[in-house]
């Protein structure tokens, strides 16, 4: 199994760098889809098939289509090459170094006595067995019960985004143009 993980990690890194380097936007978008696929594959190996499922459908599916259609609306968009500033690179390196520094005291990957695995006791899996009367998929059980309120919030986020997109893209009819346009108005 190990070499599969290594290979997927390497592919992920290559894809990320390729996305940063490439200029043709459509290729970048497709690579973003690939990136989502790859991370979803890794998620399967990390025992999170539900997230992998959603990431593949949402990350690789919906967002790719959204981006491609945006590009269709905005016309051919190629990045204009410019002299690069070093400030972003500096910020990113500092942030990354901070994060790496933070990992030094983390429980090791997969460690069974990490706080995440030992607390709360009984674990979510055990608890949901009793509470959900043996619903097989614990993730679904959690999503709808203990963290059901987050799920309501998630639905609200989608509602917000839907209303917001309507609000932004809706065309103004001629008749209901604002009574005045910016600037001089004498009532």
């Amino acid at each position, binding site marked *: 199994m190990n070499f599969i993980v290594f290979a997927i990690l390497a592919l992920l890194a290559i894809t990320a760098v390729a996305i940063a380097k490439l200029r043709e936007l459509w290729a970048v978008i497709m690579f973003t889809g690939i990136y989502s696929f790859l991370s979803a594959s890794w998620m399967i190996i990390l*025992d999170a098939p539900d997230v992998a499922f959603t990431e593949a459908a949402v990350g690789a599916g919906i967002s790719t289509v959204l981006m491609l259609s945006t590009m269709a609306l905005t016309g051919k968009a190629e990045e204009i090459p410019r002299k690069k500033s070093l400030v972003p690179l500096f910020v990113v390196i500092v942030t990354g170094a901070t994060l790496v520094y933070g990992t030094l005291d983390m429980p090791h990957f997969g460690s069974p006595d990490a706080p995440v695995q030992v607390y709360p006791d009984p674990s979510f899996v055990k608890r949901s067995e009793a509470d959900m009367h043996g*619903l097989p998929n614990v993730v679904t059980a959690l999503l709808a019960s203990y963290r059901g309120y987050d799920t309501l919030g998630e639905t609200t986020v989608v509602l917000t985004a839907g209303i*917001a997109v309507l609000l932004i893209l809706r065309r103004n009819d001629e008749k209901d143009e604002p009574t005045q346009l910016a600037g001089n108005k004498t009532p």
Partner: protein
Amino acid sequence: MTFESIAGLYNYWVVIFLMMTGFYIVLARKNLIKSVIGLNIFQTSVFLLYITMGKVEHGTAPIVPPAIAEQQSHASHGVGENAHAAIEHADEAHEVVHEVAHEVALTVADHGGELAHASTEIIYSNPLPSVLMLTAIVVGIATTALALALVVRIREDYGTVDEELILELDRGE
């Protein structure tokens, strides 16, 4: 820095590298669509960070195999009965009694433990990070959709999606 800690942490470092690549794309790119893409990569990598946390060695996905699940649903109803009774129970209640169910119940009978602990020998990874990330993925796509709508709007108004050109247009006003 021992080899052990490198072996234990390299996953996180790769994830950090991925996150920072996404972050760099957001900061460095002047094309609005590309910024959104960078944001996407950044967020996807954070999902990976969470999922990495939930994984436990020799663990498996927190989906209880159907056979065991059925066994458990019985167990949770019949707490207090002994293991032997449960086997009988399972036998008569299900026409298709799975081997697995049988085995698990037998193991439990050997240990004399409680039925609620029927699945102790399977280690499950922590499901909570998965649950959180399901929410976060949806939040992420909502943000992307909103951002792209704004990009379309900006392009309608300015005729370009390049931030520097737009700022030049604004200065020229």
